[in-house]
């Protein structure tokens, strides 16, 4: 979770401790369509995984990201 939060914080310009599963484009100003892709790119590089296009399209909040990472075998507590 720490690695994930760190990346979210850097890309979205939010404090690490403000991040929860419910954090989403609705409550983070900088979570726009470009930063959403940036986020994916940074996560892929950090965790060495590849998201599919559908997975990217289904991301609605941080909880979704955790689910996808879990699916790719990355355990996020």
């Amino acid at each position, binding site marked *: 979770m720490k690695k994930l939060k760190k990346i979210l914080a850097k890309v979205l310009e939010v404090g690490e401790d403000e991040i929860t599963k419910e954090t989403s484009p609705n409550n983070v100003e900088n979570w726009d*369509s*470009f930063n959403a892709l940036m986020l994916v790119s940074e996560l892929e590089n950090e965790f060495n995984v590849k998201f599919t296009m559908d997975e990217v399209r289904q991301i609605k909040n941080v909880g979704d990201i955790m689910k996808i990472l879990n699916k790719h075998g990355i355990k996020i507590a």
Partner: protein
Amino acid sequence: MNKKNAQKIKTVSDYFEEYRSVKKKLEFEDISKLKKVKIAILSSSTIQGIEKILSVECYNLGIIPEIFIGGYKQYYQEVLDKTSSLYEFKPDLIIISIDTHTLLGDAYFSYFQLAEEEKKRLFKNGINEVTSLVDNIKKNLNSKVIFHNFEVPIYSPLGIIDNKQELGFIEFVKKINSELEKRFKLDNQIFIFDYETFCSKWGKNNITDYKMYYLGDIKINLKYLPKLCGEYISYIKPLMSMTKKCIVLDLDNTLWGGIIGEDGLAGIRLGPNPEGKPFVEFQKYILSLFNRGIILAINSKNNLEDALDVIKNHPYMILREENFASIKINWNDKVSNIKEIAKELSIGLDSLVFFDDDKLNREMVKLALPEVEVVDLPEDPSLYLKVLMELNDFNSFYFSEEDKKKGVMYVDQRRRSELSEVGTDITEYLKALDMSVVIERATPFNIPRISQLTQKTNQFNMTTRRYLEENIKQFSDNNNYFVFSVKVEDKFGDNGLTGIAIIEKKERKWIIDSFLLSCRVIGRRIEETILAYILEEAEKEKVDVLIGEFIPTKKNDPAKDFYRKNGFELIGEKKDMQLWKFPVEKSYKYPEFIKIVKK
């Protein structure tokens, strides 16, 4: 805003974070004295994010950038419309990247359905589109233009027989690239950036992340944006006159493996075997940099005799004594040696690149002399060559014959000063140099160099007026002006074209608009030779007075007293300029020991 931070920035989000933190810091800093650059980026696909990354790269060099990102797919309109925000922005540098798919449109997929005639038309249209974009910019702006060439596709519907066609798909794109290079080969405003090679370098299989392309029209995988910005920096450095001139080299474990003082001539690693070859090839590449005009110097803690023995006598040593303009082999600390080298060569610390395998030495230099570029050599010597080849510090937009000889010239200079240490009388020394000065009017061949000298010369420069090639050409075509250059040769070699003067000819009065001499020949009475020549020509044309203008700057102290010492009289000052007068009838002689050749 410092080099230490630069090493910690790795991922794109690191760049974003750094960008925000520098931005915040800059709000409270006085940036008026820092270099500034305006960059416009026009692209056919999404390049969001590049602005922040490129900004951070500029900050790391101490440059404050202002970046204009063209509207999404708006590049054509922005260039064609003279009232567009692009022209209002007045960039110093314009980067244009059009991807292959956009250039070819639907033909990207349907290429093989086209008749040969249509393929030819497609080719012509592609080239015309690029040329017309560039021509419009050239007509309206002086900005340098970086134009991406086109990524050559790695697939063709015809597969292995693509290159059996009259003009296969892959060959088609390659041909466009080669035509573009040809077209702008001699253009000193337009530079074709080899994006195709950039893609190969990082791997065409990785350069496009297809889901990003479909989701956001992003054609370059975001993780390569920092690499791309690194390529742009290769252009920004010369644009901001941040080109390095000299490589300062350590010896032990840098030019050869091992320590000469301990391992001895036969024990060091240098030669055609696996452990010696990395050093041989590292030296070979340095030698080729020397031959393109980079000055070399040695900074080594060693016994002078031991080290010189290798340089002179080791059978596999590539760099020899005659390649080094300054040799500091002693037990002094590296920092003071570097300062000495800069002083000896009369170049700024910011023109130096320092190579040393020892981390401690590197850190000391970084700390004490932040202007010096310190290369972090890897532990493994097999990577030295790669690190050296990747440096982007020696680029320039223009490359003259003089530039090529610079490495040699500075070595000659070292020998000259060794001669002057022996003789004490300066006139005797100058006589012994056996100098000749070749005076030549401006010609199409020397105009680029004349312009370059006005741009670069700071010390012996009376007015420090900077002129472009076009300006010099206008002067030389105008009968009211007289432009000439001087070349200096002596027994140690050719110093190249090192001085120029521009005279404005008025009725019975000539005004010296520009008069300068490169610092490496200052104080050898070439100054007086130039003046004597001007007066000789003035007399021929029955001129009464010669007026010398002098504009003081922070750097032109060496020129300050020249007119006074040479019989001129101060007749007035306007604004920051002094006016000095010399009656032409008054006699003035050429220094007798300099041979004059007029062309």
